[in-house]
């Protein structure tokens, strides 16, 4: 899933200091699971904003709504009737949802209420870890299903570097060395000899490097 973090309330307050009414808009998908932008967080942020506006002596109408998905125009249509009551939206969806909301409602100012961080998963409650950078050409078959592009601090395709120490990455004792993980996996799979295969120079054109990406599936288009 996409993992996001709540922005500090002061930063959000700074973004909405001119508005007279604001809709706090959550999303029921990834940001709900990672507890950054679901219905619960919408409620918490809206109450906090109301209190702060009150303290500032400002009369600001703060609305709340959480959509099934903000990255889907169909669900975004559900707020068409209510949105006119607000000058601005603070979206607690990921960066995709925030932009999709803004694209759908061009006359509304839409502000981010979260920092969208990465594609990852929860290791335990309250701890999330990155797993994929969407490079567009997956090489996990060669690396025992551990992604060096994401998990090696130098995204080495032929690691490890000389800084790998006791299973940890040179950048921090709290970060696992991806290449240690890859080697452990290859060993567990009885494929350690695969380690000696040189990983070819990567075509990064399917990655962010190639410019904004788009997928077109002719078979699905009507």
């Amino acid at each position, binding site marked *: 899933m996409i993992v996001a973090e709540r922005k500090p309330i002061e930063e959000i307050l700074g973004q909405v200091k001119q508005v007279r009414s604001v809709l706090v808009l959550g999303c029921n998908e990834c940001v709900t699971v990672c507890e950054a932008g679901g219905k619960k967080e919408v409620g918490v942020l809206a109450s906090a904003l109301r209190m702060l506006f009150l303290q500032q002596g400002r009369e600001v109408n703060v609305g709340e709504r959480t959509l099934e998905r903000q990255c889907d125009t169909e669900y975004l249509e559900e707020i068409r009737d209510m949105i006119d009551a607000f000058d601005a939206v603070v979206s607690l969806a990921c960066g995709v949802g925030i932009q999709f909301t803004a694209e759908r409602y061009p006359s509304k100012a839409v502000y981010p209420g979260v920092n969208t961080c990465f594609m990852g998963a929860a290791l335990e409650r309250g701890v999330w870890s990155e797993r994929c950078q969407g490079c567009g050409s997956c090489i996990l078959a060669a690396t025992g299903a551990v992604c060096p592009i994401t998990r090696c*601090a*130098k*995204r*080495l*395709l*032929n*690691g*490890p*570097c*000389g*800084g*790998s*120490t*006791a*299973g940890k990455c*040179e*950048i921090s004792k709290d970060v696992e*060395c991806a290449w*240690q993980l890859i*080697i452990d996996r290859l060993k567990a799979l009885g494929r*350690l000899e695969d*380690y*000696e295969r*040189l*990983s*070819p*120079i990567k075509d*990064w054109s399917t990655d962010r490097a190639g410019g904004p990406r788009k997928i077109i599936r002719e078979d699905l288009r009507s």
Partner: protein
Amino acid sequence: MSPKTPSKLEKILRAGHRAVTSECGPPRGSDPAHIVHKAQLIQRHVDAINITDNQTSVCRLCSLAACIRLKLMGLEPVLQMVVRDRNRIALQSDILGAASFDIHNLLCLSGDHQRFGDNAQGQNVFDLDSMQLLQTVRRMRDEGKFLGGDPVQRPPAMFVGAAANPFADPFEIRVPRLAKKVAAGAEFIQTQCIYNLERFEKWMELVRDRGLHEKVFILAGVTPFKSAGMARYMKSKVPGMDVPDEVVKRMAGTPKDKQAEEGITICVETIQRLKAVEGVAGFHIMAIEWEERVPEIVERAGLFPRPTV
């Protein structure tokens, strides 16, 4: 085998001499006097001088410009190139720039992560890794082709090297990793600083078991300790460094005013012991900001005078 490039370092190694290299870090400013002075201190005692490339991710005068300085002094530079800061366009372009000044040695490295340096908030590139940089230079040199496939006019005539750390983890792939670098095109290797001689000798044994010492020239890396504090720091703070307790104790047990001397002696003893190890083709003396002591180390280790080729 006859040399494939005009590199003096290659000629010395192929002629069967033990090579001696050292390294200098460029200044944190634009005054060339600094690098010229360092090189003058060691020029008669080493065959080639590595110039580090923004080592530990601290921004410095560029390696290529410093190598050109050495070249202008009639010396033999080894251009260190990390893949942290440049993509494949810049790397190939800098290789050609170096080749245009007849810089004949290139050391391909990953580079420390930028978090260690003075620009921890910067991006890193890592478009290629160090092995892929090896492949890139060899392709440019041997096939006369850019990565994109177009021909290179006057291909770079470079003797190509890589680093190896016999002490980093996981130990079981340290030799396979060397084999991979050789397969990628490394012709010489400069190792991480060696303090744990048993572990290094064990590594060399595994290297010989696979015949790798016949495919690549291995220069054993040494760094003299200036003080017991430095020994402790290297032991605990530098990733991938293996400093045994005895060595730290030996430094700490020496009176403060004699510690520098003791550090040099340990370094000389290390070289002398490693001279006997089959497959060690030479030494890479990294005297960090202590270039003035390199001549003494070389002489005491019986590596002086340097051969002429």
